[in-house]
């Protein structure tokens, strides 16, 4: 497996930081053009946030079709070497000759030996919150990141695992794949250019004081909604509200929850309008007598296809668009919620009782938290990477909020820039 821990003098043409959609695209395009690529991913799996989505807009097809193809291209391409559970800890040198130190964190599971049989999980006594499902369910301390994970290998969460004190999984594994003594390892990779595709995270909804996230269980975020709708999610694809597992018949989407707000994220997160409309279709399809309210400041659906999607969705009379930002969510009866907004078109303050609220939280760059050890990298005022450092090219949401299709294009563009540097 090229995914096993490498050693010796390593060098490639292009090093890609981040194995999400942008990083995967950059890595694939560069390698398929004949260049050697290292792909560094922090998570135990590739695919990034896209792997957590149920459907793409506007086509409403599952992202896993595309991901499957991407993973096959990686498997069959010897020019891509990917490292999961890895972080860049130091970058030195200059365009054409970077030295990148990468720390590979212990997975405790041997990638070559693990067959993903799952015997280990049966004996593991420790639970952990499942971050892949945004904490809506639990896994054992040894777990498969998700049903379609690539690589399809187990991993141990060392923040909760009792290691040698317990070691039941070691015994249970008939392939001798578990090594609880695994230590972090730092390796040096030489690269001629670097692509930064560190992606995004959803804005922390607990910071939105008046919207009740974290206070009322039936206020969820849009990324949680994707997991609820996904077949490999915590509810096996059934949209059920957290408090009592009931099908929500009325759902309010709160647009710009934290976006376009100087007190939170001042910029537009670009995808939330379309994401909410897409999620409204999940609801309307799965719960035919459901009613959806979308509270918005402006509906932003740039370009022909997205505008068409808006037109299509707004034809459903049970998807009601209300122009007015929800500034308050109050507790109603039986776990219901009351969303308060002023309908700016009618000039009336409305209190709408719904069974579930979805906050359309925006995208915050991972770079706002995790500072890459690259001195030359310039971030803008919102911590998005700029594109003006020679030899270092950013792609995807690391550069700014974008939908998946644009991110693929940006990855391809960054690959070309990387190749140009490597060529010199």
């Amino acid at each position, binding site marked *: 497996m090229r995914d096993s821990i490498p050693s010796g003098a390593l060098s490639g043409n292009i090093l890609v930081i981040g194995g999400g959609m942008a990083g995967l695209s950059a890595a694939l395009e560069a390698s398929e053009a004949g260049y050697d690529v290292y792909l560094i991913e922090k998570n135990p799996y590739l695919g990034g946030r896209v792997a957590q989505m149920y459907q793409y807009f506007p086509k409403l097809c599952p992202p896993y079709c595309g991901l499957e193809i991407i993973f096959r291209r990686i498997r069959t391409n010897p020019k891509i070497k990917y490292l999961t559970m890895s972080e860049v800890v130091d970058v030195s040198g200059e365009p054409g000759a970077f030295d990148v130190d990468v720390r590979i964190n212990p997975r405790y599971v041997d990638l070559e030996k693990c067959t993903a049989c799952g015997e280990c999980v049966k004996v593991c006594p420790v639970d952990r919150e499942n971050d892949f499902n945004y904490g809506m369910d639990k896994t054992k301390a040894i777990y498969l990141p998700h049903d379609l994970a690539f690589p399809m290998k187990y991993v141990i969460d060392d923040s909760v695992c009792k290691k040698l004190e317990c070691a039941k999984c070691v015994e249970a594994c008939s392939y001798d794949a578990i090594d609880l003594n695994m230590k972090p390892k730092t390796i040096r990779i030489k690269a001629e250019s670097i692509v930064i595709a560190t992606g995004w995270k959803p804005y922390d909804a607990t910071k939105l004081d008046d919207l009740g996230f974290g206070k009322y269980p039936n206020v969820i975020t849009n990324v949680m909604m994707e997991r609820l709708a996904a077949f490999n999610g915590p509810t096996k694809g059934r949209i059920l509200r957290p408090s009592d597992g009931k099908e929500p018949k009325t759902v309010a989407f709160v647009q*710009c929850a934290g976006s376009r707000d100087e*007190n*939170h994220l001042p910029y537009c997160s670009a995808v939330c309008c379309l994401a909410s409309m897409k999620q409204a279709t999940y609801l309307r399809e799965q719960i035919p007598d459901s009613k959806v309210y979308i509270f918005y*400041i402006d509906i932003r659906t740039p370009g022909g296809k997205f505008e068409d999607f808006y037109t299509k969705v707004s034809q459903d009379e049970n998807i009601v668009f209300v122009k*007015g930002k929800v500034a308050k969510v109050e507790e*109603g009866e039986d776990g219901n919620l009351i969303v*308060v907004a002023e309908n700016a078109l009618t000039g*009336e*303050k409305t*209190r709408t009782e719904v069974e579930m609220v979805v906050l359309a939280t925006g995208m915050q760059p991972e770079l706002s938290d995790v500072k890459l050890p690259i001195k030359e990298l310039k971030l803008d005022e919102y911590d998005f990477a700029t594109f003006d450092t020679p030899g270092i090219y950013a792609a995807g949401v690391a550069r700014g909020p974008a939908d998946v299709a644009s991110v693929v294009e940006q990855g391809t563009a960054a690959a070309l820039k990387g190749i140009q540097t490597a060529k010199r």
Partner: protein
Amino acid sequence: MTRVEPDVKFIKDLLKMGGASLKKCFQCATCSVVCPLSPDDDPFPRKEMIWAQWGLKDRLLKDPDIWLCHQCNDCSISCPRGAKPGEVLNAVRNYVFYEFSTPKFIGKLFTSPMYLPVVLAIPLILIFAVLQIPGVLKNPDMEHVIFGTFINDLAIEIAGLTVGAYVIIVALISFYKYWKAIGMSQDLVFEVERGVEGKTVQKIGGFLTEFWQALLEIIKHSRFRECTQNNYRYWAHLGVFYGFILLAISTAGATIYMHGLGIHELALPIYDPVKLLGNLGFLLVFVGLSWILYARLSRSDVAGSPSYQDWFFITDLYLVVITGILMEASRFAGAASIAYPLYLAHLYFVFMLIAYAPYSKFAHLMYRGLAYVWAKKTGRMPEPPQQVQSVQRET
């Protein structure tokens, strides 16, 4: 079809009069929701923000809702754009002071600090002129500080009554103009459509009832109390308001002493009830004002930045009470050389406070009071003040 006729000059004036941020608004309506004072039906201040942006002067000047706002500033704090609706509404109120002032050229003097020299010079000239009248300025008693030996009390009374009469006349004219503008002279619709629950019929008991209800509202400061983010304002304004009333009572008491009881040398000892009331009034106004100033200066992002009109009024009132207490202190200390000039300064600041009342922020008492009566009449501010909350239930 409604024709929108933007008044560009009006927009520019609002920008200068405290609404500098109004163009940042993108109409998300967060403000109307977080406002603790806004009614459900046609809430403010979102609609006022777009009227201000569009320069719809007519609508704004006829909109009593701007007085139902007490600038709690919850809206400005939550505003995602920093458009500060609280300050914009304050700017509109400042514009009302000007628009309905009588005569308007005096009102104009309060629209910009540019005219401040004129504003300061007018009372200076008038006081100087009055002092030239023989018998007004006397030879002060330097042994014991008795202010009546410095300036003739009778002159002050005559001047005071003259200024008072002027103020009442111009204020009444302004009052009437605003009365007409907000439609008080027409038959108002008493049925107010509220939410989806249908019509709420407001029982109306005629002007006196409405006036009484509005007065109670003012006395209790009950709307101020609804402020959440800046709840200090309730206490601070209450202090200034009642302190001012105590000062007025104390002044009335002094007049009764002079004319009713025939005390001519009005140098009351500190334990005299009238003196005590006056000092308590001073203390309340001073503490309230200091609190407001401190909050406005130390955390203007939360409390809001004062407009020029705010500054003028706060400063003048501050100077009135400070010169007042200092002249009292110097009187008890027997420091005649300080006490008499302070007295003159005090008269100057009091003159400005009273003579300019119909044009300065002081006039908010009149306009807001009238708007309260309007709100009681139309049911926009029902009794009790808490909004009837209609919940839209969907099945």
